[in-house]
């Protein structure tokens, strides 16, 4: 069987872009609040459904769909942070309690979505058609996805390096005590980060939903690779996440080719992310972060 390697590379870029947009929020909130937010999956799902609501049920355009999805998931993330996680942390809850709370919130959101939009898969209609470019099969959606990931990387880079808030996020993530002592309102920084992170999760959800289908498990279906991206990239490390998102995208797409060559079911593609996740945790839990440490 001849493998179209150009297509594999292109698909890797598409997958990596999706994972990057989805994982940025997770890795930043994980780094600041010091626990993994399992409800991140449902923030992705909510974004997909809000996007569906705006484009299909209200019949409005894509830019507005992305904006509304960003704001609604962002607000939800913000509210979870102020209403539940920060009070819990103030009461001295252990990390296990915080994780359980995030799982509980995930279930609340998932089943609320299920109750509103039912558990039947829904499809976006206006996702554009595919066309051939040389040996590649491309859809407009994929090009937009890659563009969104590039724009996000650039915007986040500028934000993290040159704005006060970005610097505050980095400072609070690496040393909360010192940041607080230097006059940074760490709690506020955490709340802002939750808003941005949850909003970006929603953007990933809209793209994922438009590319495949949406149902209340949309986010949960890709939560493993997204966790793998956050951990391989080094928790709280945005630059690590960029690299690891594309590593995992590539590993998955090359892995699928390998799985097909071996005659194994391609549903195992998610297993590749799991393997990377486990190996990273065992061998180097700090992930790729050390590549981006400044002297």
């Amino acid at each position, binding site marked *: 069987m001849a493998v179209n390697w150009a297509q594999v590379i292109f698909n890797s870029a598409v997958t990596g872009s999706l994972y990057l947009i989805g994982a940025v929020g997770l890795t930043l909130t994980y780094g600041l609040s010091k626990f993994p937010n399992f409800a991140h999956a449902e923030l992705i799902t909510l974004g997909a459904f809000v996007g569906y609501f705006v484009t299909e049920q209200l019949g409005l355009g894509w830019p507005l769909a992305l904006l509304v999805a960003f704001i609604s998931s962002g607000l939800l993330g913000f509210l979870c942070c102020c209403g539940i996680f920060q009070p819990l942390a103030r009461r001295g*809850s252990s*990390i*296990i309690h915080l994780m*359980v*709370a995030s799982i509980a919130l995930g279930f609340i959101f998932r089943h*609320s979505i*299920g109750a509103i939009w039912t558990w039947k898969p829904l499809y976006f209609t206006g996702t554009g058609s595919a066309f051939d470019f040389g040996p590649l099969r491309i859809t407009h959606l994929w090009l937009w996805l890659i563009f969104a990931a590039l724009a996000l990387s650039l915007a986040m880079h500028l934000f993290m390096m040159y704005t006060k808030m970005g610097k505050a996020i980095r400072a609070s993530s690496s040393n909360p005590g010192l940041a607080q002592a230097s006059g940074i309102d760490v709690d506020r920084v955490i709340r802002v980060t939750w808003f941005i992170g949850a909003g970006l999760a929603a953007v990933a959800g809209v793209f994922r939903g438009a590319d495949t289908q949406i149902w209340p498990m949309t986010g949960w279906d890709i939560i*493993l690779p997204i966790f793998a991206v956050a951990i391989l990239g080094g928790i709280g490390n945005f630059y690590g996440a960029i690299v690891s998102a594309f590593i995992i995208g590539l590993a998955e797409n090359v892995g699928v080719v390998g799985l097909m060559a071996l005659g194994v079911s391609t549903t195992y593609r998610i297993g590749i992310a799991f393997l990377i*996740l486990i190996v990273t*945790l065992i061998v180097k839990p700090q992930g790729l972060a050390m590549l981006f440490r400044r002297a």
Partner: protein
Amino acid sequence: MDPLLYVLDLIVFIGIFGIVSLSLNLEFGFAGLANFGKVAFFLIGAYTYALLSQTGIPFYFCLIASALVSAVFGLLISLPALRLRADYLAIAILAFGEILRLIVKSEDWLAGGDWGVTVARAISIEGASHRVDALINIGLVYFCLLVFFVVIQLLANSPYGRAMRAIREDELAAEVMGKDRTKFKAQALMMGSAMAGVAGALYVQYLHCVLPGMFMPMITFTVWIMVLVGGPGNNWGVLLGAALVQIIERGTNILKDYIRFLPVDPTLLERILSDLQYIAFGILIIIVLLWRPQGLLKESKIRSKVQRLAYDGRRAAKNKGS
């Protein structure tokens, strides 16, 4: 359905999930491990039982094998995972459970893949009614529950259990006192997995079938609710939690059968009832975490011989003094 059967059914489920929540209590309540992949070991026990029972081996061997295979997997996952921080351990075990479900789902030769296979009852009597069947299952499940309960209760009050609690409270201090934390945690995970495996086996033989859809992460979450609501570190508490959660869950299912008698649109309610139930569970757990993190029953005090002697001695001294 016959109303008595609802009750018997509920009792069986309370027993099965009582075993699982006891096992999580051992891991989380006593040893402080965040096992977010309970369902993985439940699944391993269930599939081991399902596959072995097809070969015609007596059911008690199948049950023991389920316990052993789950324990081995518990040990295997503990080897790399226990050196990790609590959050990494949680992610790794959760991912393990998801992958395991993926495997049984895609491998058709192994117990029918997505469609599953039927599983024979452990004990079946020719021509027995459903009620008798349920009663036999109650006997079997509660026998296992009793054995595990006694073992964990003894363990919790023994020096071994005290070492475990010490590791939960302060790993470093316990290590300084010469307690090997990795060993204790691995053993807790192994025992907990064995118990979860037995529960999984009992579950599939009671339900007569095994399919990947029975092992959603939801199971892990309900078991966590049972433990956290009931009271981590208290074996009576987690059984109470298991009973409460199961009563709510089964109650909702029964409600579904009777919903047409209610003066609301039945199709809509039927559709959203299970969603509402899970939303309620989620809200319940957040309320517990925010306002009663110790659960309904507080962690049981350690009862040991030395403590009793000390108490008697103090009382004797007081009596002499007065």
